[in-house]
């Protein structure tokens, strides 16, 4: 009799979070009373029972080697009984019930190059995408700009001295797998030229109806080139989203001279005070300048510092700009207002000034 084939393990889903919860968390699950901040990056949550849970938050580059993850595991064993978590913004958080371990853990983290901070009115870690490290449609690198910007904003991460929290995000193209569209400051890679159609490979690699349907502006039409079925791009209608390239590798649009960075400001997702809002265009284009993108760093730091100096306590970037008005934002930051700042996509008129409320 033939042996039973070994059953493949599939569709088991993720392991239950319950297996990974600190005993103090298990005991006080859903029974937390309040929290306070002991220092930037150090939180204390107090339960109804009186139990306390301490959190130490450290920034990471998101792109982590197994070596660094093992270091985090070792530190968790040394100070936290082995319990830790990551945040939605790529920080690592060490969870412990012994307050006495906080300073030693902070020291070890710093000695290994991981800064502690990112809480409350600090700049938190930058949420970002893959960039040239691993993406096919990126108009810029992600990790490199994040590194350069966070080097410049390091003290803003380790100190809580801004008017409110400040969330920066970076996506390396309009696909926005980093969903930067609701960030205080969004750094967004942009292409500026239509894709170049490779008519030789297109019939073999792409499905033409799918390709045509992928274009949000209807800029792709069927065409016959050299007696082969292919497509053409109506260049006036293309806004370089790269959607066609995602479904068809014969439509590359990477272009060193025309790819670069745009900067957007004033978005938020929290409902605190004002409703969630989209980020709006501040700077339409800055050329790529690796390895450290000094013009991008300068632009971001400028916006952060002007905001820090002028916003009222608790005002997020977008709330501050709404109070002072966009003309004042452009005046204070010295950023040039151009034709590109005026929306010309669907329902563009909603962003036109439709009153005589004007400050002089």
């Amino acid at each position, binding site marked *: 009799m033939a042996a039973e084939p070994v059953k493949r393990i599939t569709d088991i889903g993720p392991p239950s979070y319950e297996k990974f919860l600190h005993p103090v968390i298990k005991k006080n699950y859903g029974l937390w009373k309040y929290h306070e901040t002991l220092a930037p990056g150090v939180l204390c949550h107090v339960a109804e029972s009186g139990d306390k849970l301490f959190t130490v938050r450290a920034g990471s580059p998101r792109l982590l080697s197994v070596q660094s993850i093992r270091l985090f*595991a070792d530190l968790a064993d040394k100070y936290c009984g082995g319990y830790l978590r990551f945040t939605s913004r790529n920080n690592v958080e060490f969870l412990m019930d012994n307050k006495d371990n906080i300073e030693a853990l902070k020291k070890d983290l710093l000695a290994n190059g991981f800064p502690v901070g990112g809480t409350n009115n600090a700049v938190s870690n930058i949420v970002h995408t893959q960039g040239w490290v691993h993406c096919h449609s990126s108009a810029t690198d992600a990790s490199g700009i994040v590194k350069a910007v966070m080097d410049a904003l390091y003290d803003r991460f380790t100190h809580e001295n801004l008017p409110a929290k400040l969330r920066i995000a970076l996506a390396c193209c309009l696909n926005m797998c980093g969903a930067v569209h609701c960030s205080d400051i969004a750094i967004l890679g942009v292409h500026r030229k239509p894709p170049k159609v490779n008519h030789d490979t297109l019939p073999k690699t792409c499905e033409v109806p799918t390709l045509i349907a992928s274009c949000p502006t209807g800029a792709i039409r069927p065409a016959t080139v050299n007696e082969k079925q292919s497509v053409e791009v109506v260049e006036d209608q293309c806004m370089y989203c790269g959607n066609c390239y995602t479904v068809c590798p014969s439509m590359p649009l990477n272009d060193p001279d025309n790819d670069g960075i745009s900067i957007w400001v004033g978005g938020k997702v929290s409902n605190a005070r004002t409703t969630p809002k989209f980020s709006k265009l501040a700077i339409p284009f800055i050329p790529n300048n690796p390895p450290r993108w000094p013009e991008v760093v300068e632009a971001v730091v400028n916006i952060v510092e002007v905001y820090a100096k002028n916003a009222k306590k608790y005002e997020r970037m977008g709330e501050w700009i709404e109070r002072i008005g966009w003309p004042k934002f452009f005046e204070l930051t010295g950023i040039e207002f151009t034709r590109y700042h005026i929306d010309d996509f669907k329902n563009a008129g909603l962003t036109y000034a439709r009153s005589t409320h004007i400050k002089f």
Partner: protein
Amino acid sequence: MADQKRDTKLLDELEKGPWPSFVKEIKNASKTSPVCDDLLGQLELSYEEKKGHWKHGGIVGVMGYGGGVIGRYSDVPEQFPQVAHFHTMRVNQPSGWFYTSGSLRTLCDIWERHGSGLTNMHGSTGDIVFLGTKTDELEPCFKELGEAGFDLGGSGSCMRTPSACAGMARCEWACYDTLKMCNDVTHQYQDELHRPPFPYKFKFKFSGCPNDCVASIARSDMSVIGTWKDEIQQDDAEVAAYAAAGMDIQNDVCANCPSKCMKWDGKKLSIDNHECVRCMHCINVMPKALRPGKERGATILIGAKAPIVQGALLASVLVPFVPADELMDTLKELVSRVWEFWDEYGKNRERIGELIQRVGMSNFLDAIGLDPIPQMVTAPRDNPYIFFKGEE
């Protein structure tokens, strides 16, 4: 060859400065994983030429799954043969990204055996991202992950890996159990997660309160955000303590209230809870004195997305309040109706939010059997192009 390190003059500049360096991470991994040398080499080339060198496409995956692996190929494989194939595996994270040191070491060991040793902790949607392996390694890696109790996450036109905030594990503001909800939804829809059945992606994100720490209102097709119905819990002694400690309650708290429902007379804070819009500002500022009410649950919203294809959308209100203990059943019922409608009418690569824009919210509500209510809009329509139904 193993000792012959690539010249990375430009990338070396990114090892300088105080913030942790991803270049150091890649170099670290290259000690045990020579493929990282070719990754560094190709990345240096991108830095020199100011363009990416990856190609999309090629269907790769594990047997029986239609997602969870992103095929990635170098467009300069002759120069960098070790990253000719460099696929991403998405591994479904535990809810709330909680780990033990042991579970992280298990993941590291598996990934060192079968891939580059590079990860993202975590990807934008929430998965543990295993960055870079060859086609042959996918199935063995998947097998070991399964034996260790882990499974792949979503990619393509499927239910994407759901994510949740820390919730009741470490937050006094969690108005429902986000971790349990995220875990239960993920397990409930394993088929939809692993075998893409939809016109496009579908994301769930679970936030415990209106601070929305997982950006659910901006990033998820179905957004569940905790809220409460009764009165803010107030501790007058703690309010007084904040005032005594120097907090300017009039300016810091009352003046920032969007519905102006709070009064401070120098001694007593009064809240007109019927006017409160549950924005969280006062609670954020005075966590010892104010807390969400006791009648807790969630608002369900629909349709958020990033710009591709028709422009970015924020999620909008579908159900203003569902009590916490009815949330899972309500969500399941709603999801089945939404997916049925989307399945029937959605075009290829059309997110649910875009479909609603195209057919109109009213038609969508008819289809899923929900009555229109004023909480769904910021204002009624201001144009007169009303298409009256024949029978009315």
